[in-house]
């Protein structure tokens, strides 16, 4: 039977994911050098607003995406986990930079060797620090993943 004109059929999941990927709001979790590049990504020159991403929320309760920008020390790890726990589901994590992803060049007593020991990570961004273009690529990758449902774990 032919569908009547003027209707669009879809599934709840795909329309929900369509809405989710277009409004993934970041929690500011700037830690070190990468935070400066994250600020630059959001500012006028690189203009993250093109992807509906310019809203960085100071409160984790209003955020869907945590961009871990910088090195995570042993002392900071519990704080990071607490902020992650305060974010509402569904939520995503981008590990920005070598330090957040693996500990980077600091293989010592002070740093957590990769933030994936503390929170589940969806996208890793290489670089020290990654430039704004790298971060944007990571965000667009995340958007693709959310849209396709690959990164939606609810």
């Amino acid at each position: 039977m032919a569908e009547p004109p003027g209707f669009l059929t879809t599934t709840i999941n795909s329309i929900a994911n369509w809405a989710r990927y277009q409004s993934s709001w970041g929690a500011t979790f700037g830690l070190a050098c990468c935070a400066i590049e994250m600020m630059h990504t959001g500012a006028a020159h690189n203009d993250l607003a093109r992807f509906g991403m310019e809203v960085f929320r100071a409160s984790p309760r209003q955020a869907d995406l945590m961009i871990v920008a910088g090195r995570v020390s042993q002392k900071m790890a519990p704080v990071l986990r607490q902020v992650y726990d305060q974010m509402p589901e569904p939520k995503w994590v981008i590990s920005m930079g070598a330090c957040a992803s693996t500990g980077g060049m600091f293989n010592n007593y002070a740093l957590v060797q990769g933030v994936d020991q503390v929170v589940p990570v969806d996208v890793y961004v290489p670089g020290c620090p990654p430039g704004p273009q790298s971060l944007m690529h990571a965000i667009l990758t995340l958007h693709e993943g959310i849209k396709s449902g690959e990164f939606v774990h609810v």
Partner: protein
Amino acid sequence: MSEDTSTQDTTTEETSGETAPASESERRRLQEIWAAGTEEPAWVTAATAEGAQLMLPRDQASPVEVAEEGGTLVNDDRLYELEAAEEETTILNMGPQHPSTHGVLRLQLELEGEIVRRVKPVIGYLHTGMEKTGETLTFLQGPTNVTRMDYLAPFHNELCFSLATEALLGIDLPPRALAIRVLMTELNRVSSHLTWVATQGMDLGAVSMMIYGIRERELLLAFFEKTTGLRMNHNYIRPGGVAADLPDGWQEDVAEIVEAIPKGLDDYHDLLTHNPIFLGRTEGVGVITAQECFAYGITGPPLRAAGVDWDLRKTQPYSGIEHYDFEVPLGQHGDVYNRYLVRMEEMRQSLRIAAQVAESMPDGDYRSEDLKVTPPPRKRIDESMEALIHHFKIFTEGFKVPAGEHYQAIEGPRGELGHYVVSVGDAKPWRLHCRTPSFAAIQALPTLMADQLIADSVAIIASIDPVLGDVDR
């Protein structure tokens, strides 16, 4: 300040341990702690040598702690008695995840109404163990490590470490290397201050400053990327010179920077300098006197804003900066507004130095001719086996530095940046210690913030321009 990120902390230091709660009231107390989410695990407080990191209520804190947190240790000009009763004060936790503490600074504030009475900064949330890591890297690798300390002033860190190493080695550099170093560090001072003006504006509600400051900074970062390959953390200034010569067309780039950024600074002056809201938020706020600066070891723009003519570029010149003509701007009152004016003028002076360097850039080599320190040129490696071996040895073993110790201080964007390097004749430093300006500035926060409104606290934090990578390192 949003309520979600700053949770109130009224619990005492007493920890319950890991045993099951004994009674219903104890269970309820634990539930409250859990809901507030603030109490540290018992092992954290037990393991800290400095004792508890929480701010204690007045009846439990020692008089020294109260004086320290009230900012009255140095100068007794405003000893005061709490007007409200003890129960009417609130201890508020701010950070470490807070947008306006410039990184992961954590502050505990005792509030009497809206007035801040005591401040306790808690640091260490970005401790990276860099001084220890520095002992495992050769002198040539050292700048990769120190450049990540103060990530807004990477060139200054590299320069300081390189100067200390060169002093131990006893080598002289060709004039072009010195001039390139001056050019890059002074442009770095501008880029650092631009980040400061962006965040200072944003913290006071002038959000457009964030856009403007970073717009101008992109120009500088593009030039840094062209020269060094990276926008930040360059590892460009190394012991024995710089990593590479300036790129083709650098004169045009510097000329563009020197022309474009003062126009931006004029815009900022139009927007901020006589803006009544900005004046109201900054004039007379966060005053620190010269005497207090000396006591806390504060250097750089906050010291100069207090009227002290002390700039290491003038008093202990390094890297040939004494050959260039520039002025040291001074303030009078030592408040947030004076610090703003001093930094704005410093940017112009740094651009003036950059223009002079670009005009008088000497020809010649950009690295030392000491073959013990400088790797052979890339072309020679293709032609000569010895050059290949030489290159390999310098980058694997490194070069040995004579035994000795040296403290080198330079004028970073935040004040005196010093590296103390001890060598025992090895290819790696035996000890690396860094004297960082933000660390000294953070400990003066009680003096700056006590008896001020809580709304002014963000303005004060921004005005001393702390970089937590510089504090914790």
